[in-house]
Each structure stands twice: as C-alpha cells, then as structure tokens.
C-alpha cells in the first residue's frame, strides 16, 4: 500500500484521534503505508501536546537544566537533586486539569496518583505532595462543586496512599471558571542505590506488566487533555480515569522492594496513553524495540480490542524490563502484595514497537516515531504585546479616586484603611486555606516540620524510612513551594513568569532554605492562537531568565495547553496564562527554620528589601489584589523583578534564620505589606505596633504605601537580645532595611501609625475572623 491509496479512515475519524490532516499524511510517510485503527489511535495520543510537546518543545529548549546538584534533569519520569549526606530527592509537577473539570473527584485523585508514580518509578519513596489549584469565583455553585470535589479527591487519594500533603496554593478568579487548574507536585527520597531509568536495554530481556488490571477507563485521556473543553465535554467522562489509592500504596511498596533486588533494568509508569506510551518511550529511550503481547495483560473487562488495550489509561500500572532469568523473583514480590505481574513481552534489537493480539501482529510502529521524533511546530510569536496588554498598561494609579491618611471613597462609600484591610483578608485568594488542608493528612510519615499555613513554604525532614536510622542524625530537611501569580503573568507574561520564580525562591528563603531547582507546570490556552502563543513564549523566556539568574535549573515538568472553555455563544475563553513554579530547597538543619507568625512578645519587626516609602514605582497597585478586590479592576503593569535585590534580601533572611536571630519571616505578596503584617499577627496570635515614616514622598499614594505589591520584600521578627548582631549584619548588606515596630505583649491588635495618627487600627479577633472564615463561609453559605 502506498500513500496514494485513499485513507481507510474518514477525515472525521482522523480528527477524532486529535490528529490534523497533515499529521495523518506524515504518519503515512513514516510507516510507508496507512496505519490500522490501533496504530492510528497510538499516533493520536503520542502526538498530542500532552505527550510530545509539539508546540512547546522549541520553547522549553531554552531552560537552564544543569547545575552542581542536578543528578537527573528533564527527560526522565522526574528530576533528581543531590541533598548531601547521600540523600537524593526526586520531584516533579503534573497537571490534571481537564479530567478535573469533568469529574473533579476522580480527576484530582488520579492526578495525585500519576505524579506519585513518576516519583517511585525512579526508586524514590514519595515523602510529600503539594498542590497548585485554581478555580472560578466561589459565588458560583458549579465552582463550589468543582472546588470541593477536587479537594475531596486529593484528600481521598493522598490520605490513603500515606503520603502527606504538606502545602500548596489556591487561587480563585473567573478566568478559571470553566477550566479549573489542578497541578500536583510530589517529592520522593531515593531508596535504591541506583536511580531507576526508563530506557529499555538487554536484547531478549523480558518485559513485565505489573500492578492493576486494564479496562476501558480513561480511553484517550491524553488527547482529551489536549483539546479545548466544551459543553459536550461532560459526555467525555469515560476519558476520566478512576483511581485506587490502596492499590497504589501496595504498588509503591512492591516496586521499591523489586528495585532493591537489582533485577529491574528499567521501569516506566503507565500514565497518559498507557501501554502505548510506556512501550514506545522505554524502547525509544533505550534505542531498542519492544515486542508486547496484549493477550498476557490482566483485564478487568471482556471483549477488549487492541485499540482499547493500547489507549486505556487504567491507573496503578507500570512496565518493567527485567534481567532475563530473574522475572519470577519480581513476580513473587508483586503477588505477595496482591498485585499482578506478568511477562508480556521482550526487548528486541529492531527499534520498533510490535504489538501482538490473538497471535497476530496488531500494530507495528517505529518506536521513535511515537516517542522521540515527533512533530514539532515552530510558531512565530507576536512582535508587539497584544491589544489587551497595551490597554491594561495604559492604566495608571491616577485613575483611582483620591485618598488620604484616613481612607478612600469608593463608589460613594468612604472606607477607612482598616476596613479595606478586612476586605482584603476576606478575599479567598488571601484568606486562610485551612478549609482545604484540614482535609489532607499532612503528618503521616512523621517528618512534617512545619504544618500547612504555618510558613511560606512546606518543610519536611529527610529521613530514610527503611533500615534503622537514628532520628537525631536525620537533621536535613527539604523545603518546597508552588507559586504563580497568574494575574501578573496575564498582564506581563515575561515579568510575571520571572516573578513566579523569584517568589518561589523568596518563600523558600523565608523558612531558611537554599533554593536548588524547579519543576514547572505550564498551563496555557491554545498555542494555535497568536495571543496564547505569545503568552507561552514570553513566559518561557521569563522562566528561563529567572532560573538562570537565581541558579535554580529546571529539572522537568509538564505542559498543559488548550486550557480554554467555550461560553454559551461558542467564544473561546482562555484561562490566565499560569506557569506554576514548583521549587525545592535544602535546609541543612531542621532546627534552624521558622514560620511566618510572630513567635514572641516584644520582638523587633523589620522590613527587608524595598523600602516602606519607596516611590520609584517599584511598589505598584498594577495587577494588585487591592485593585481587583476594592476597585474591581484588572489592569496596570505588574511589579518587576529586581534580581540583584531579590538575591540579597533572600540571602540575608536565610542567614538571619540560621544564626538564630530571625524568629519569623514572611514575604509580601498579594495584598502587599499590610496584609503580610496582618498575616504575621494572625499566625502568631499576637498583635503588633508599627510606625511608618512621618512624611511620605508626594508621589506616593496611601493605598500604594499600604497595599502596593512588589518583589524582594520580607517581614521578619527578631528577639531584642540579638538586635546588635542582627543590625550589624544588615548594615553590611547592599539593601534597604528598616525597624518598623514591635510585637505586642498584651494589646491584641494591629496598629500602624504615621505622624502620630492611625493608618490601621484593628483588633486581632476581627482580622482572624475575616481571614479564617472567608472560604468556609462561602462554601457553607
């Protein structure tokens, strides 16, 4: 058969696999014939953006990926960094956005399951999970259903599998109402001497299918994830997988036990595109081929055809290449844990994936055509920022109503700054996320040093769990955070993406951790649309630059494009471009870390970095939470990253924590300086008395002073006994710093005054109520 014969499929059938007509022609050219039904399905999933990054790969190339501590960079199931003392940490982030939009509980649950498999496939025991979540406005009933479903799904899976969910972020914005974002990041501590890789090797070595059975669930999930959502998407429920955390828990134990025998040559998780993806990637990564017999696969349904076997995304399954002759050893381990393990194929020299079904060849495709040498689209980015950005940038603070020391009049209503602060604390973006993390087991494994909500980053002790380890010797810790202010990215993708990296590093520094490396989750709209592609390209450029400048290489990640929903009129509504940065850092001694709440009475409160009365424009209301909540305006230029200052401020904070001078540290993000101070009060259950400069520059508005946002700012508290050492140290740093006031001994309120007049004067209890009940009130009411 040649390419000139008519295709045995209708254009609709080809489109249904997510393939474009020119991609179909390319398949025919590669095979030298038309594909059969099963092969067409294999190409459909493997050539989806989710699996092959055909739109994003040229952009991802610019990421810095190497560094002294990087043991494994992009390309494997997860990145691995050296934490010292022989401790190696695997970590990775992944999205499950589309499944969660259609079936929030299972979508989110299997998102957790998938990212955990990426970790233990490497030989690492999962030790922590974080989540980055985005939903629409909580006033909307459908959003509330999605939000509570996603949280329940994460809770269900993570709690049962016995991995603590230690941190994360949650945002609410109408931009995500039809298309929530569910990104899960997992961390694991290597338990095997060798890092288990995915490249198959050893001609004749057996290929083992291990774990759960195969059914029709999750058919074509990868293609589904790479398409826009529409009103009909709800009918795509079969494309959503169903997870079983109990099986996953057993799979973790069995896999780690199996890897320790040394009999496993290579391993790959069956995630997106299941058997198709794992066979072709293992073959391509090893430069060999794989023969695989579908008749050996344990099934949960009858009458399945090759197309269904190959595209099934049944969960909790893995593919191993074993040393010939040692397969029974491995099978015994899996059977002991009540799991399947069967020899279903072998490694062959010819670099093809050959699938057998009922004694006949059901598919035969060059491995690289599926996994490696896949289509790439070089797209041109816009030369100028698109119109919406130019319009937003034209906004200036002068368009806001005038304000003075006492407050501001908005829509005819005079509001004091204290009232404005209460409104901001009640914003679900700023408010306590206790409603969420209360449902996650964040202490299992007995290594959680700081609980969720207690600090700017999660801190987990690095303690091997196998073998006898004196706990007093396990003093190292890992800090982790997930960050992205997508409003910044929307209004300036380059600066916004840089700020996501800077903020992640700042959050780690606030617990005393040295930032090491990142994993990124690029959640964007359709790359086929010029504006969305411009956002993606600019954000990748920003991530690259910031990671290079802050010495935090990219070790891998995930790309989720086509995050758009069609409204009732059929107009696509893109999400905010959301490049989530998951960063890990090293804490040499977990006794030298701190939280964000004031720890003691009469501590001295300092602001490090950008000064309180900075009027250069570095502190801005552009893209701020204040502007969105109080003035219902999304406009302006977001703050820009000052890399040199960020590095100095962060290093000073870390040093202060390690010297034992700094007792609490909290960065200023959404809501600016005053919201940060309020959060320190709430976190420490203690008031504070602060004094702002008596005279302000004429160009500085009071709302910018109080609620303006910028990078490179950290609020710390220091015991008075260390004032001399601390200030002597600060004097040598090339940055601004200022003593702003003290924590209170008895007075339970936050007061900020300038020139002997109040700017803010609020009882702690009022702030707590607003902040703690904001989400619960909207969910229950």
């Amino acid at each position, binding site marked *: 058969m040649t390419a000139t014969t008519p295709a045995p499929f209708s254009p609709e059938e080809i489109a249904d696999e997510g393939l474009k007509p020119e991609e179909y022609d390319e398949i025919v050219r590669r095979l030298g014939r038309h594909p059969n039904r099963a092969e067409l399905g294999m190409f459909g999933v493997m050539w989806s953006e989710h699996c092959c990054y055909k739109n994003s790969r040229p952009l991802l190339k610019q990421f810095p990926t190497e560094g002294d501590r990087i043991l494994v960079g992009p390309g494997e199931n997860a990145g691995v960094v050296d934490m010292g003392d022989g401790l190696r940490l695997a970590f990775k982030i992944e999205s499950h956005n589309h499944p969660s939009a259609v079936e929030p509980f299972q979508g989110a649950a299997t998102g957790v399951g998938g990212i955990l498999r990426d970790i233990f496939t490497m030989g690492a025991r999962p030790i922590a999970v974080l989540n980055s979540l985005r939903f629409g406005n909580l006033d909307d009933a459908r959003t509330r259903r999605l939000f509570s479903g996603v949280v*329940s799904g994460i*809770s*269900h899976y993570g*709690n*049962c*599998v*016995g991995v603590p969910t230690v941190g994360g972020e949650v945002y609410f914005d109408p931009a995500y109402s039809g298309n929530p974002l569910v990104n899960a990041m997992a961390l694991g501590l290597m338990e095997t001497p060798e890092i288990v890789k995915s490249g198959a090797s050893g001609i004749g070595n057996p290929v083992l299918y291990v774990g759960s059975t195969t059914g029709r669930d999750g058919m074509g999930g990868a293609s589904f994830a790479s398409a826009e959502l529409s009103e009909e998407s709800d009918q795509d429920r079969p494309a959503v997988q169903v997870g*079983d*955390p*109990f*099986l996953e*828990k*057993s799979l973790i134990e069995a896999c780690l036990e199996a890897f320790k025998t040394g009999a496993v040559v290579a391993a790959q998780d069956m995630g997106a595109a299941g058997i198709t993806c794992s066979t072709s990637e293992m073959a391509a990564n090893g430069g060999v081929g794989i023969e695989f017999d579908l008749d050996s696969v344990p099934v949960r349904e009858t009458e399945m055809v090759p197309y269904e076997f190959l595209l099934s995304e049944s969960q909790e399954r893995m593919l191993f290449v074993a040393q010939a002759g040692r397969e029974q050893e491995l099978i015994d381990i899996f059977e002991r*844990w*009540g799991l399947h393990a069967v020899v279903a194929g072998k490694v062959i020299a010819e670099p093809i994936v050959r699938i057998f079904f009922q004694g006949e060849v059901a598919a035969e495709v060059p491995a690289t055509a599926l996994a490696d040498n896949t289509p790439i689209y070089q797209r041109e980015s816009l030369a100028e920022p698109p119109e919406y950005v130019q319009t937003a940038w034209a906004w200036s603070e002068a368009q806001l109503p005038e304000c003075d020391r006492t407050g501001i009049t908005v829509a005819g209503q005079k509001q004091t700054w204290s009232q404005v602060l209460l409104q901001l604390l009640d914003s679900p973006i700023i408010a306590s996320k206790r409603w969420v*993390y*209360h*449902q*996650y*087991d*964040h*202490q*299992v*494994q*007995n*290594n*959680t*040093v700081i609980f969720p909500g207690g600090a700017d980053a999660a801190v987990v*002790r690095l303690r091997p*769990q196998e073998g*006898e*380890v*004196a*706990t*007093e010797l*396990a*003093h190292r810790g890992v800090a982790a955070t997930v960050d992205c202010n997508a409003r910044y990215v929307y209004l300036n993708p380059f600066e916004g993406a840089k700020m996501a990296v800077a903020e992640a590093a700042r959050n780690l520094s606030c617990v005393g951790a040295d930032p090491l490396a990142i994993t990124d989750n690029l959640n964007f709209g359709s790359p086929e649309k010029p504006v969305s592609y411009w956002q993606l390209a600019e954000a990748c450029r920003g991530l690259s630059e910031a990671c290079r400048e802050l010495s935090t290489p990219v070790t891998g990640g995930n790309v989720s494009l086509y995050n758009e929903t069609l409204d009732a009129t059929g107009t696509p509504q893109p999400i905010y471009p959301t490049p989530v940065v998951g960063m890990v850092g090293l804490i040499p001694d*977990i*006794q030298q870390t701190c939280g964000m709440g004031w720890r003691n009475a009469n501590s001295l409160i300092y602001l490090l970095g950008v000064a309180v009365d900075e009027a250069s424009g570095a502190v801005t209301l552009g893209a701020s939470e204040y502007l969105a909540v109080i003035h219902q305006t999304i406009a302006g230029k977001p703050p820009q990253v000052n890399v040199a200052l960020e590095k100095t401020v962060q290093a000073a904070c870390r040093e202060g924590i390690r010297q034992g001078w700094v007792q609490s540290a909290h960065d200023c993000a959404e809501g600016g300086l005053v919201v940060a101070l309020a959060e320190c009060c709430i976190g420490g259950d203690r008031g504070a008395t602060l004094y702002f400069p008596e005279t302000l520059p004429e160009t500085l508005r009071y709302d910018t002073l109080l609620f303006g946002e910028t990078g490179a700012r950290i609020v710390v508290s220091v015991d008075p006994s260390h004032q001399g050492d601390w200030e002597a140290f600060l004097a040598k740093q090339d940055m601004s710093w200022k003593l702003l006031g003290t924590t209170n001994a008895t007075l339970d309120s936050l007061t900020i005054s300038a020139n002997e007049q109040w700017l803010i004067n609020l009882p702690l209890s009022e702030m707590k109520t607003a902040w703690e009940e904001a989400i619960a009130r909207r969910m229950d009411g």
Partner: protein
Amino acid sequence: MKFGVIVFPGSNCDRDVAMVTRDLLEQPTRMVWHEERDLSDLDVVIVPGGFSYGDYLRCGAIARFSPAMQATLDHAQRGGMVLGICNGFQVLTEAGLLPGALVRNRDLNFICDRPTLRVERTDFPWTQGYSRNAVITLPIAHGEGCYYADADTLKSLEDQQQVVFRYCTPEGELADAANPNGSLNHIAGICNRQGNVLGMMPHPERASDAMLGNTDGLALFEGLLNAVQAVA
C-alpha cells in the same frame, strides 16, 4: 520489651510507630506481615493507622479476618498488650476486642488537626506517664473517627471507667466545639475491662519526636516500658 507492628496492605503508619519504638525508645521491634500467625515472641502488638485492605467495605472490616488479627485476639486473651491507633482502633472494634464502632465524622470530611485531649485514667500501663486529668495535644487524621455505641454499651463503658481519652478544650472542659468528629461522650480512646487493649483515634506516634516539636504522645510508650519493667 518486644514490639510487633502489624502490616496490612494499605497500612501507612506502620513505619511511624516503629520509628518511635525502635529508633526513639530503642526497643526490639518487628514488622508483622498480615499473614503471620505466630506472635508469641511479642509483648506488645500495635495495630497501626492507614487504610487496611483499602477500607473499601467498612474501615477495619476485612482486616479482622487476617491471620495476624486472629493471633492478636489470642495475644490479648493471654493478657498481652494491644494498641490500636486510628485505623487500628477501627480494626479492634471490628474484631470485637473493643466495644462500639467508629463512624463517619460529624461534618463528613476528613480531618487532620491537633486537638486537645483529657487523660481520664492514669492507672493503666498506657497512661501512667500522665498526670490525672492532664490535657495533652495529639494529632488526628481520619474520616471515620466518630465514636459510636448504643446506650447500654456507653453506660457500661462509663461505669467501668473504660474511657481513657476524651476530646476537650485547652482548659480541659468537655464541649461540642472541642469535639472534632462528633464522638459520643467526646470519646477519643477506650480500653477493654482488663486494660490490656487500648484503642484510640489520635496518633501518639506523631507526637513523640522532639525534633518535630510535640512529645505529648511519648509518655504513652514510655509508660508501657516502665509498667512492664516494674512487673518484671
């Protein structure tokens, strides 16, 4: 003193318990696979937290049929010490070693938190390390931790003073607001009449390591060591 920690498929606090008994208290500790039948070498059997066999039918309902649990029944009947924590408490009620049942939390959601508890009995080996009516803080993490029993069983428990821990306010008062899961009589932990079998929803093993801050749970394990040493 030799500890055994039962490992069911789905157990996930087994290593956490062993960390306390083996690494912190330096006691011989053996992981007991759920298919084992001989526990005669053990002084204390601990049924740890987790989701035994996935907890799909009902928490602990499958685990009770395991060979290791059958052996645990024998161990308890011989007067051996048995501690069930969280899912382990659920398993002990299913196995009939302790009365009552653990049902879905009052607010239907999983709860991970650190409530305060009042120690009701200090004359058991388990709790002799605490002072009477001491208020301690122990972590909880469960979806089905609401203690339920019929009126007669509840009365009998109270009459026999089998309630060992109750959820309370930081001041030691019993209050609905301080009861995280709606447990009847604010019950967080109970023992059998002989006092050798203890079941509790809070996790003492998560509050034993000074490196992590809270050590309110360590006294429970230490009290056990002292008691057995005193007998020996």
